[in-house]
């Protein structure tokens, strides 16, 4: 599998996701935000975490309109895989690839902590190595991760099974306590209609080794790589 990690000015978790992709067996290339095309043969585009352009405006608003995003939209329209993590999720919402928006956390503070997620479905390219309803232990680090959408959008996301992950407790129960940023329906990540674009606030890329907290994040990257291994 060939992955392209887009680097915006202010991206800061590009190295973390690069390491996770490589360790799962993907080839990876960094792509500068001013590029007009993706590298030939790109299977997966990753928008990493960070504070693109400082995020002094609405988070992801400027990055969502960056030059490279036209190429990303074209890739997605062709059915190519796109993964946006944290700031990447915010950028996907701002670029029109995913619905809704990430508001400031309910407590109005940046929060960084370990967090369980429940895997809502395991029949996508991103989650095939997980079990359905499996609680996975990853982490969050964001100030604006409070997923918000209008009623109609929310109904559609739920109705079409487009919620990818929800904040849960260690047993996979969806509780108010586990939903610290105040997201609607405890949504931690969502898919596009065709399930080829995933945006998520938590960071699976930081939980890929026992030494630094655990390996529950590996499944996502290994799912992606194995999707391609099978296809090829």
């Amino acid at each position, binding site marked *: 599998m060939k992955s392209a990690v887009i680097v915006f*000015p*202010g991206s*800061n*978790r590009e*190295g*973390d996701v690069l*390491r*996770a992709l490589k360790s799962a067996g993907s080839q990876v290339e960094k792509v500068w935000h001013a590029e007009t095309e993706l590298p030939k043969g790109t299977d997966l585009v990753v928008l990493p*975490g*960070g*504070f693109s*352009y*400082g*995020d*002094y405006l609405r988070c992801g608003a400027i990055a969502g309109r960056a030059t490279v995003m036209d190429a990303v939209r074209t890739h997605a329209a062709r059915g190519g895989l796109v993964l946006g993590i944290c700031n990447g999720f915010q950028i996907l919402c701002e670029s029109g690839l995913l619905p809704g928006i990430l508001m400031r956390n309910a407590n109005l*503070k*940046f*929060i*960084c*902590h370990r967090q369980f997620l429940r895997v809502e479905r395991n029949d996508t390219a991103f989650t095939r190595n997980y079990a359905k309803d499996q609680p996975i232990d990853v*982490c969050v*680090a964001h*100030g604006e991760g409070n997923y918000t959408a209008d009623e109609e959008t929310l109904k559609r996301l739920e109705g079409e099974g487009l919620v990818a992950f929800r904040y849960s407790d260690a047993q996979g129960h969806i509780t108010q306590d586990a939903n610290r940023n105040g997201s609607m329906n405890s949504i931690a990540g969502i898919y596009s209609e065709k399930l080829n674009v995933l945006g998520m606030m938590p*960071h699976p*890329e*930081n939980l*890929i*080794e026992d*030494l*630094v*907290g655990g390996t529950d994040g590996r499944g996502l990257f290994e799912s992606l790589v194995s999707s391609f291994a099978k296809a090829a």
Partner: protein
Amino acid sequence: MIRNDVAITPELVKEHGLKPDEYERFVTLIGREPTITELGIVSAMWNEHCSYKSSRIHLRGLPTKAPWVIQGPGENAGVIDIGDGLACIFKMESHNHPSFIEPYQGAATGVGGILRDVFTMGARPIAALNFLRFGEPDHPKTPHLVSGVVAGIGGYGNSFGVPTVGGSVGFDKRYNGNILVNAMAVGLARTDEIWYAKATGIGNPIVYLGSKTGRDGIHGATMASAEFDDASDEKRPTVQVGDPFAEKLLLEACLELMKSGAVIAIQDMGAAGLTSSAVEMGAKGNLGIELDLDKVPCREEGMTAYEMMLSESQERMLMVLKPGMEQEAEAIFHKWGLDFAVIGKTTDTLRFVIKHGGEVKADLPIKELGDEAPLYDRPWVESPKQPVIVPDSVKTPMSEAEALLKLVGSPDQCSKRWVWEQYDHLILGNTVQTPGGDAAIVRVEDGPKGLALTTDVTPRYCEADPFEGGKQAVAEAWRNITAVGGLPLAITDNLNFASPERPESMGQFVGCLKGIGEACKALDFPVVSGNVSLYNETNGQGILPTPAIGGVGLVDDVTVNASVAFKREGEVIILIGATQGWLGQSIYLRDVCGREDGAPPPVDLATERRNGDFVRQLIRSGQVTTVHDLSDGGIALGLAEMAMAGGVGAEITAFPENLPLHAFLFGEDQARYLIAVDEDVAADILYEAGAIGVPAVTLGLTGGDALILPGQQAISVKQLKAAHEAWLPNYMTGKA
């Protein structure tokens, strides 16, 4: 001849923070009345913050050398060799005064400044830490300051993309008018790719990089060199505004430029901005510097030479480039969207010449600006010695179990989760030990090496006995690194004291420094960088003497380490080190008995080293993975923290008959550790300890869901945790 538009009056001299004799010294040096720009320049160079005029004489006594030290104090940061061609570059610096006036920006730019110090030398920052002290919780300003400072530290570090992995937070009424915000940054570079401030070559271009210059922060360093009064809020305009995004771009651009081979010397613009950075580069290289301010990228129109030379706008750098490399360098900076301008050149005149609008605004001897700064041997008096408190003389107002429950939920001992959850401590994916333990561990690149990092000092000890307190601060940093399995290598010190013009507080400074020096020598733990912050006082009331120590140690293999959490039931708890039940200046005496007296625990450095070396060897040989060093609150608090971290209880059955129980449990004798080990190896460890004369005794066993102290009612781990976690969030939401 320089045209002088502004008459230099005694009032003007005073406003610039110069004493009349200091001004006279300057006039004699240059042989004429200075221009206003020159007065500004000298005020920036000769204030306490930049010139260390009251502290220099005493700083000379600190040990700064060791075979692994590549660069000691005097550069942007200290550099140590960690093997495999890698260097660790680190420093701690205060932003106390600005943080009190504008907590968010003051703290944020403190982080920005220290990160810049580290990457100026070619290092990529891999960790940040901090040391914070606030006024008493009941003071009306305290919650606002806590909230702003924590948000500011997080706001800058999180966006920049460095994990904030450790720190210290405490409260005391003595910080009511002067909080402490000390930020530490740790970076990594190759030993053959370290960059210094020393300019070389005549006629080489001097390049301005980064953000534009504005009017913010003018006289910031002068403000930091004066005590506060009731009108200090009026100093808000001297606080700078941080832009972590610009800093992140500056980092990437600088590292890219360094790789290109175009850089001769580099210096960040921190305190006293363009003035201090340019003078430093020239003076270090025995060269003159000529700047043309018309070329300086400005944010505002009509800025004067005076304003440009004193602006402390953030995220700016000065470089000397190899001639002919300007275009290549400019292309890199423009790619990152940053300003780049050739604003001057090196000369052979040893003069610091500033031109603006076609006129010379300043023409000063460059070396004398630094070398001839005033140097004071301020009068000082030794702090009066406090009597030693005999354990039997301290009466207990409550049971030991009640006292422990009170302490775990007290402002100083409670969990600081509310603070560190606002810091991204996981970015970069190398945080092996997160905040909340003895020392943080970050892996170096892909391992197996790691760095153990901590910030420490016990200010109440330093006030009661500056010499012992200074020793203890270093010893505790050394112990915290040891307790995770690290070999302590070097420290950075952030010396926060009150006015040096009062002999009592100068005496505290002198005493603490002597103690720090002695401990550093005995523990092979040299000082490689640091910062002095004096005048931390308001309306004549000084802070507690607070020499914060930032320690760095090396972990050879990060997979072999120890943490505080009890990991299994049925493990034997062993106390390493001797216990006399030292209650003087203890947390128990202060927070349970309401007394703040007595001599603090003495630190025997030979014992410290012997006990610590023993514990480290147990960790490194893989025999022990559960270790906690003992400090505030002694054995009882240590046990509680180990139980809470692991979710496993313990029962303590052994205790000395000849000591009151509360003195045994809460005494703060130094050089001690608690370890928990498998029953099979416990006997061996006790034997090994005995063989080399390290005191080691069995206290009890881990297990159950409660902590049971001798003869006391069991306290469930759940109850301990509830008390421990509750105070700070409740306080910050107005419920405590």
